[in-house]
């Protein structure tokens, strides 16, 4: 007990003995403070290095190795895999399709999501919590289950087509499933919550008196929305778009179920190369092309906004 009390005492009043040999004591104290932290971090760091960082670097390396057949001995360092990708119109059109579908998904999510975020920002914390629960809870249900729900609704003999036929609006069922439309519906449904929450977060940070100031100065609600609220929520819009875009670019399950062979997006092609054709080096290159394309588009998009006339909103 006595020693503890002394220890506590030291923390408040510097021990005079410290002054005599400050450097040594200081170094010792720092070392002591680092060690427990590192010990606690050791398991997770080793785990992630061994099973995450190294595999990711390994397939980056493999993407520069070209082999004619899986496991062939004539492996050599080359750009052949990437050349193959960028000279074959099938792969290029798959990449373009992936970008296009992802952009549509972003657009749909933004248009449908913004009003929800706005409503959340204008509501009491209680209502906000309920809306957040309603839109975020589906994220915790497996994506296959959500896609199955869309099957029920979108199939040629599904709910939507039956309603439209019985109303006499269409004669032949619309091709909603196994098409680009189906994939955009599935993806926007899955990722909309992220868009809403991203925009809502930035709307919460807007000073409500700004809106009032605009009104006092004679702006109509619509005018003050477009000149005050919308520009100030741009950071949220940008981060929501980036999030939805990146997730759409690399989604596999929804394109596979809602688009199938009719919508051969990059993840479908990459999966096929790896799991069915066992072309590992080419599949690795495909993965990195997908990652790099996403990164470039996201960076250009974000930079573009940060340097635009709305750059103040991003500070």
């Amino acid at each position: 007990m006595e020693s503890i009390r002394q220890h506590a005492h030291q923390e408040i009043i510097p021990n005079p003995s410290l002054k005599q040999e400050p450097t040594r004591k200081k170094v010792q104290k720092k070392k002591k403070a680092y060690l427990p932290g590192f010990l606690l971090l050791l398991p997770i760091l080793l785990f992630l290095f061994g099973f995450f960082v190294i595999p990711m670097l390994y397939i980056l390396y493999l993407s520069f190795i070209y082999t004619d057949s899986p496991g062939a001995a004539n492996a050599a360092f080359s750009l052949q895999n990437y050349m193959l990708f960028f000279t074959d119109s099938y792969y290029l059109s798959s990449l373009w399709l992936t970008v296009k579908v992802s952009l549509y998904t972003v657009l749909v999510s933004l248009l449908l999501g913004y009003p929800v975020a706005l409503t959340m920002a204008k509501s009491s914390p209680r209502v906000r919590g309920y809306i957040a629960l309603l839109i975020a809870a589906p994220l915790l249900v497996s994506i296959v289950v959500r896609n199955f729900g869309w099957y029920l609704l979108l199939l040629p003999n599904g709910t939507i087509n039956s309603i439209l036929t019985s109303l006499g609006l269409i004669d032949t069922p619309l091709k909603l499933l196994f098409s680009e439309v189906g994939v955009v519906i599935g993806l926007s449904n899955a990722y909309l919550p992220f868009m809403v929450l991203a925009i809502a977060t930035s709307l919460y940070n807007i000073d409500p008196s700004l809106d009032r100031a605009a009104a006092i100065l004679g702006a109509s609600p619509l005018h003050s929305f477009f000149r005050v609220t919308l520009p100030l929520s741009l950071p949220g819009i940008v981060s929501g778009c980036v999030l939805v875009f990146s997730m759409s670019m690399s989604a596999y399950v929804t394109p596979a179920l809602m688009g199938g062979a009719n919508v051969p997006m990059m993840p479908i092609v990459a999966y096929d190369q790896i799991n069915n054709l066992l072309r590992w080096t080419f599949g690795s290159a495909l993965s990195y092309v997908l990652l790099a394309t996403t990164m470039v588009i996201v960076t250009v998009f974000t930079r573009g906004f940060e340097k635009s006339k709305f750059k103040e909103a991003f500070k």
Partner: protein
Amino acid sequence: MKALGKLRIAFTVITIIYILIPLLVVIPASFTSANYPSFPPQGFSMQWYTKILERPEFMTALANSAKFALIAAFFSVLFGTLGALAIAKYDIPGKAFITALLTSPLSVPQLVLGVALLIYFTPLMLAGTGMGFLIAHIIICIPYVIRLVLTGLSGFDYNLERAAAILGASPATVFWKVTLPLIRPAIISGGLFAFLTSFDNVTVSLFMVSPDMRTLPIEIFSHMQDAYDPLVASISSVVIFISIILIVILEKLQGVGKMFGGTH
């Protein structure tokens, strides 16, 4: 002015329905008496629930999903909590970099992670094994645990630990009696979240499963591609029920919206 507000609320309701509708139609469809699933269902019967029990592959897959999700949640909580404690409590050089590294599996697409792990695991004899599957799932769960526990620790008052130490508690006692109880809600949320993440996962799992070791979402996934029968509706409803129970607990503990970075 009023009209604008009404329009906004109308759009809000439409979007919320749009988000929820695929889940809302699955449960009624599972009670159909017909041989094909549809919404609205034809008649009423429980036959598609009793038929689950007659299909051993679904029962095995359900057991596998639960077992692996439990183990993956345990290890990601163990590693993640220790890591988050280290970041929040101790003075470590490169803290920002380490935090970024620990949450980085979130920003790598699951498809790419699956590709990388399958290729890496094959020579290590881990591909298609339960061990390989678990490692993959722990990786995707860790970022969530880190984030939730770090949030839980952000309001942590370290004076409480100091007070306990001054009153004579050993470091171990301080941890068990002070630190742990205070961050327990965050840890439990992290664990539940990790469980659901693993339980629901399809993309990474597709690269990790083998014909004799499959999980429920994988079974549903391949069923949807080959056959289209109401069994998928009833088994999906079971998944929804399990998710709802955990979502209710999570909402009570933490607020589900908060976990995805939403509300204040």
